[in-house]
């Protein structure tokens, strides 16, 4: 461990004798007017619940303190000078420092140099959401001979009046159902896509398994337990097999799209030597990703 002298920071206005300081520092002058103005305002208000004379007194204080405050600031702000005298203060750690085990070139944790941008998740969510429509539409066609069935089921959570509607009604086209379903689907797809964008760099070893199967099954499990509260109508009619298929479709496509995106550099990249950042050397620290 080496010791090194530290640059003494200089006051931009300082011309002190021993350490480049000003002999005195200017601070705003104390003034009673803020307190008097606050008291005046309070009395003006208090007069409403006590007596008009109290308000009149408050008004007088408000006017007087406003004038006083004005002349505190104009034409020149009032200051006081506080004299200073320099002394040396050591800033020192009171704790002993232990030697670091030579586990790596640098003992600090190595963080990833690159990750996905936030837009990778958004794009993945959008494309995955589109892909998910296909199995959902097939499910509607098979079960009710209508592509609108799945759309209306999704939208039904927002329309209480649809609670007692028949399957035939849900198989018809409804513009408000389409708009509601599109909104719910788009929002959920983008949010899950963002989650993928954030998660995938954490689990780089088996991206297809993570994105295409583990995440959809976890998500399905959460929804399975909560759907009765979120949308009882959907809960009563949902076909979980088709739901899982559509989730897997989303996961595979979304994960594929996210992985296609160009990675962006994290702040850790900026701390690398210039030669490494410029690509002249490749001796940057190895990461888990590099091993693969």
């Amino acid at each position, binding site marked *: 461990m080496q010791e090194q002298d530290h640059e003494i920071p200089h006051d931009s206005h300082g011309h002190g004798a021993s350490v480049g300081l000003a002999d005195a*520092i200017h601070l705003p002058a104390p003034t009673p007017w803020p307190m008097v103005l606050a008291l005046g305002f309070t009395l003006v208000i208090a007069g409403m619940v006590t007596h008009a004379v109290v308000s009149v007194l408050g008004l007088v204080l408000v006017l007087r303190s406003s004038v006083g405050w004005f002349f505190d600031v104009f034409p020149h702000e009032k200051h006081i000078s506080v004299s200073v005298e320099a002394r040396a203060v050591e800033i020192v750690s009171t704790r002993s420092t232990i030697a670091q085990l030579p586990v790596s070139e640098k003992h600090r944790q190595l963080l990833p140099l690159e990750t996905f941008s936030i837009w990778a998740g958004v794009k993945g969510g959008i494309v995955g959401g589109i892909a998910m429509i296909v199995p959902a539409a097939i499910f509607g066609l098979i079960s009710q001979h209508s592509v609108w069935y799945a759309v209306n089921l999704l939208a039904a959570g927002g329309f209480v009046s649809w609670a007692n509607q028949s399957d035939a009604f849900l198989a018809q086209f409804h513009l408000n159902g389409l708009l509601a379903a599109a909104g719910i689907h788009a929002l959920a797809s983008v949010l899950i896509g963002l989650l993928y964008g954030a998660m995938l760099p954490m689990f780089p070893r088996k991206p297809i398994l993570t994105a295409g199967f583990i995440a959809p099954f976890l998500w399905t499990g959460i929804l399975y337990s909560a759907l009765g509260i979120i949308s009882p109508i959907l809960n009563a009619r949902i076909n979980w097999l088709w739901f899982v298929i559509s989730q897997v479709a989303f996961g595979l496509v979304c994960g594929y799209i996210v992985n296609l995106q160009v990675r962006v550099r994290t702040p850790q990249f900026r701390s690398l030597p210039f030669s490494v950042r410029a690509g002249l050397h490749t001796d940057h620290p190895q990461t888990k990703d590099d091993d693969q």
Partner: protein
Amino acid sequence: MATTTPIMEVIDETEATGHGRPPVSVIYDWITTVDHKKIGLMYIFYALFFLVVGGFEAILMRIQLAVPNNHFLSPQVFNQLFTMHGTTMVFFVGMPILFGFGNYLIPLMIGARDMAFPRLNAFSFWISAFAGLLLYYSYIGASGLYAAGSAPDVGWFAYAPLTAKVFSPGHSTDYWTLGIFLSGVGSIGTALNIVTTILCMRCEGMKLNRMPLLPWIYLVMGGLVFVAVSPLTAAQIMLTLDRYLGSHFFDTQAGGSAVLWMHFFWIFGHPEVYVLVLPAFAFMNEIIPVFSRKAIFGYPAMVAASVGIGFISLGVWAHHMFTVGLGPAGNTFFVFSTMVISVPTGIKIFNWLATIWGGKIILAPPMMFSVGFLFQFLIAGLTGIMLSAAPFDWQLGNSYFVVAHFHYVLVGAILFAIFAAFYYWYPKVTGRMMNVKLAHWHFWLFIVGFHLTFDFMHIPGLLGMPRRIYTYEADRGWEILNLIVSSGAIFQAAGTLVFVYNLVSSYFKGENAGHDPWDAWTLEWSIPSPPPSYNFAIEPVVSSRRPLWDIKHPEDQDSEYE
């Protein structure tokens, strides 16, 4: 091996001349001061005074509820007590004490000499202080339903139409309205100062991404105050117009809407919870790393989570109104928005745990209270998620379960964080260390009392005990639970007395603290304790988030990694 780096600091010789002056001169100094540190301390003293007052009111209520069929208090006095207790604790304890810490610490942590608007700062404090006095003057001067000397009795959220002239004759409700209105003016002024100071007065090198997390969070909190307090102030004006000039904003019989008041109040009220809890997070962000001997884990995520909490908290207010009947769209939106806020909050908890993980933990008093905060805030968050589900809330809204939940937040999280902050920054403010033995007594008495009171308070709520109930029959199954809850209040009161004694006695007898007793890393620890009136004789220059670490460890500076 310790690394030492000499730097030059200055002392203010004028400070020494304060001793032996006549008391009038000293009082005049405090009344006329525009120094952010003195104003911060005045905020804290004033809040501590009201903490004792509000705590005394709570104890009276707990005595009343300790046994069934009790008539220790009259119903009228009980109504006044829960109104004044809630109003006092939120507006005249929570807000001022956190503004006080902010006032004291923000310029020191960002390397500034004072707040941006020192005179506005003094005005904001004084108008808040006078607001509290005006509210409590109602005990003497208000003519209410029970003749002269009637404190407000409409509850701390003062729902319409109870506040209408016909149901609240006299002036007791007006004292509440006007006191809150004036307090709001002070809050806006202080928030303006905090935001401007942080944005405009940081020292050289302190970019936003190098700023300590405490100022970051106060910046978010200041923004929240702008947005949240304004509707409350507007609502107070509307209520005053209703009561004085015959308008009908909240008069349902004349075409107004009582629900409108609820919207106005809670669009203030829920962000207000975050106005109070965000500074508590800020204290944790400073204390936990120092006592874990590690840099905070995930600084950018912590900043993003704070901003996220601030943003989302503006869209959750109607979860206080599920029992009104919001309709499916409203219920769905507010259930989800409320649940979503657990994401950034969870990020914070995980990051604090990750900071502690693998660290060399020092269980000094600030860290003990911080650990208490972590555990209790987690529980408070979990019951919050339970209550965010509308069907659950329909069952338990306005029950003692809700009372237990928000006291877990306000006491278990915020008050514990405030205690941690007292123990952490007391040496900086006074130059003396607080007594550790007394701090341990304080901690254990308070944590036992807290859990006796607020853990057991959930159960009568689940059994159907409504909040604000004056007394109850013996056959409800609540009596033993209420006795335990009330007994916990005694432990808490004893702990608080130990704390106050420690504050006072350590000022006179505490060990000298030096300028950096905790071996900390932010700028306030680089100057003498207590700090001179100008804070920094030389404007500091920073190159990382932990400038003192860089000076103490020149061989391993943070600036090489950030």
